[in-house]
């Protein structure tokens, strides 16, 4: 057992300050363990979200030494403990209290994305046939645990606050999972261009770097969707076809 210092943001609705807490740390601990110990022993009212503590639910997102991470999956032995470990709430969402932010915007964005719309079943028993290869592509996106760390680091949201014009990487991944699902028949390409604001993404790949599920957000989801938008709206040949009523998706 040794002692380490955790510099935790305390306060409400954006106002607040860092407060230092020293606590015992032991082998194998993660940041969330230290936060829990501080909460149980020194600060019962320290506000923090968490659930599964196993990297599966995406509740305990925070910025640890400035890096957006899940607290439950950040081992203390990956951090320099000779200096205080800073823990702050995410910055792209309104602050509530201590480490908790108001992420409700994400839930309202999702509602506006056209839902899964399958083609008629392939078999009389109401089931479909799908190759594992096609499932693989969609399953990568469906690994998302909705931790919203990708939203937190996206410049369009974090620095430019364009929450009204841009759905953010999480919901481009969500749209990709629907668009690339071989059973789905809805068309989200016009919405991607207009309401979802895909053009605002300038492919800096910050989202991909912070994804705890290692989803290749930019290369596998966003760029192929951008290509669909370009093919539909900006490709001169397709445009010509569309004029004569032979357009394709």
């Amino acid at each position, binding site marked *: 057992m040794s002692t380490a210092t955790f510099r935790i943001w305390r306060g*409400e609705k954006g106002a607040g300050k860092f407060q230092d807490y020293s606590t015992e740390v*032991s*082998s*194998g*601990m*993660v940041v969330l*363990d230290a936060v829990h110990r501080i*909460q*149980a*022993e020194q600060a*019962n*009212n*320290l*506000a*923090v*979200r*968490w*659930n*599964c*503590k*196993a*990297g*599966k*639910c*995406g*509740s305990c997102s925070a910025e640890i030494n400035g890096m957006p991470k899940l607290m439950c*999956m950040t*081992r203390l032995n990956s951090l320099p403990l000779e200096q205080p470990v800073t823990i702050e709430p995410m910055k792209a969402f309104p602050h*509530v*209290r*201590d480490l*908790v932010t*108001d*992420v*409700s915007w994400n*839930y309202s964005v*999702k*509602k506006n994305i056209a*839902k*899964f719309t*399958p083609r008629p*079943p392939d078999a009389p*028993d*109401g*089931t*479909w*046939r*799908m*190759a*594992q290869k096609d*499932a693989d592509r*969609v*399953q990568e996106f*469906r*690994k998302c*645990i*909705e931790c919203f760390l990708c939203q937190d680091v996206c410049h369009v949201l974090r620095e430019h606050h364009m929450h009204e014009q841009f759905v953010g990487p999480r919901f481009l991944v969500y749209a990709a999972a*629907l668009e690339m*699902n071989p059973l*789905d028949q809805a068309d989200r390409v016009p919405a991607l261009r207009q309401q979802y604001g895909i053009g605002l993404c300038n492919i800096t790949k910050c989202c991909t770097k912070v994804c705890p599920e290692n989803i290749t957000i930019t290369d596998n989801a966003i760029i192929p969707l951008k290509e669909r938008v370009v093919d539909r709206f900006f490709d001169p040949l397709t445009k010509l076809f569309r004029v004569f009523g032979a357009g394709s998706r």
Partner: protein
Amino acid sequence: MAEHVTHEHDVLVIGAGGAGLRAAAEAAAAGVSVAVISKSLLGKAHTVMAEGGIAAALANVDDRDSWRVHFADTMRGGQYLNSWRMAELHAKEAPACVRELEAWGAVFDRTADGRILQRNFGGHRYPRLAHVGDRTGLEMIRTLQDHDIHLGMDVFMEYTVVALLKDGGRIAGAFGYDRERGRFHLFRAKAVILATGGIGRAYKITSNSWEYTGDGHALAYHAGASLMDMEFVQFHPTGMIWPPSVRGILVTEGVRGEGGVLRNKDGRRFMFDDIPAAYANQTSDTEEEGWRYTQGDKNARRPPELLTRDHVARCIRREVREGRGSPHGGVFLDIAWIKNRIPNAAEHIKKKLPSMYHQFKQLADIDITVEAMEVGPTTHYVMGGVRVDPDSQMSDVPGLFAAGECGAGLHGANRLGGNSLSDLLVFGKRAGQYAAGYARENSLGVIHSDEVAAAEKHALAPFERDGAEGPYAVQHALQDMMQDLVGIVRQEKEMLQALERIQEFKLRASRAGVSGHREYNPGWHTAIDLNNLLTVSEMVTRAALERKESRGAHFRDDFPAKDDKFGSCNIVIRKGPGGEMQIRREPIPEMPVELKQIIQEMK
């Protein structure tokens, strides 16, 4: 009385895991107004932790499977204490519920001919679990969540219910608070569905998150509903044990389904040493046959690692107790060994068990494709819960329904892996359907302001106290005690001691104070939840004392054998007129001949 906001709906669903979301979908589709109360954010419930799959006799991988086999497996696993009617409905309706999930957007792993793939699991005769790698629960909850948000229901995220409200004998609504502001809310509803999950937080070592404090169990109890089977708490055999901070995190049974084996420190596959008579015909004699089973050989029988969870957990405990455990007090679970059997084993393991691979790599510095894992039992699930009508899921309080883990009946003395997710779907759907029906036939009940005032006073009490001790200290002490005295192996002397300790903890809890104000204050929330934990701990202990035999997940050192006297009854709990906890034995209804016949045929 302080202020509160009033909401009105036809059906109120308390809980937003698999059962709650499925119930809400069904009620909304029936055309009634629906509210869902979620203790955490939407999509974070314990359902996301389910890894292995959804049990349903689709017969995609082995065409010998059918609802009859699934029914017999479930009853055998539950040691025949199950509600046979629920087991029948579950086995018959699970396949349609899985297909429905696919129609709502779930993307399951596929067979070579493009259908939903199924895998082997403990206690299931044939490969039966529809799955997505080892993250099936996430797929399920996300599919339900994304489906529900388009159905026009009101979702209240980060709200907690502290009391159910009644009008005479029937349900009238619920009273609770929102975490962010700490404001009180009154939910008037014609029907209420409890879907609050389990009680894992009553124990120190658990796979459950902070939410699982037995809220639905305690709410139903105080509202006058009966509960049953509370002595049956499932200790999942394989939780992580090292490093200490990850102790209890689940290691999916899917590891064993894919060929993983359990060994003690001498390298012995100790599961071969003790095979229960009821399973002897279905269990392989040799390591070779066990391996062939995991690789889909239809003529091979399952390896003993895939015996039921209660049995595997006790075998692990035996090895550790008798000094044959691993360095940190567990046993070894080895999947890496399959490299001797198949090419590209490392890639295969990463593909089939991706989150296990990451979990061990990140949290324990262990590469499971190279080394064995250290595992030991962890509190995972409670078979007991609110006693319900098998068809409608209504409790004995009119208008109050329960589905999923907080309901009882389907699993009997022990739940089979994979039967939980299918339980959520089948009985979530039924609860939603019948609650909507009840709501259509009944008007809103009258709210009695004294009940509301009492609930509010109770909720605010922790702020009035200046006790030196906070709620966390009491909670931790309770968890240590339950782990020690009412754990995997029980005896009367220890459980009587546990009852005394629970009384002490009640006193301590009634004095524990909290600081700060009502806005997003986890100390306050913990103080409120602690009351529920104490209620369910007492239920588990009293029911376990009453069942003087060993059966399924309930094992008594002082009564180590099964006793037929207890094989035909459930232990039922109810709040007595003086507020005392009443325990009684109730005979299980006679099973119809056709179902008895199925069980005979499948022996």
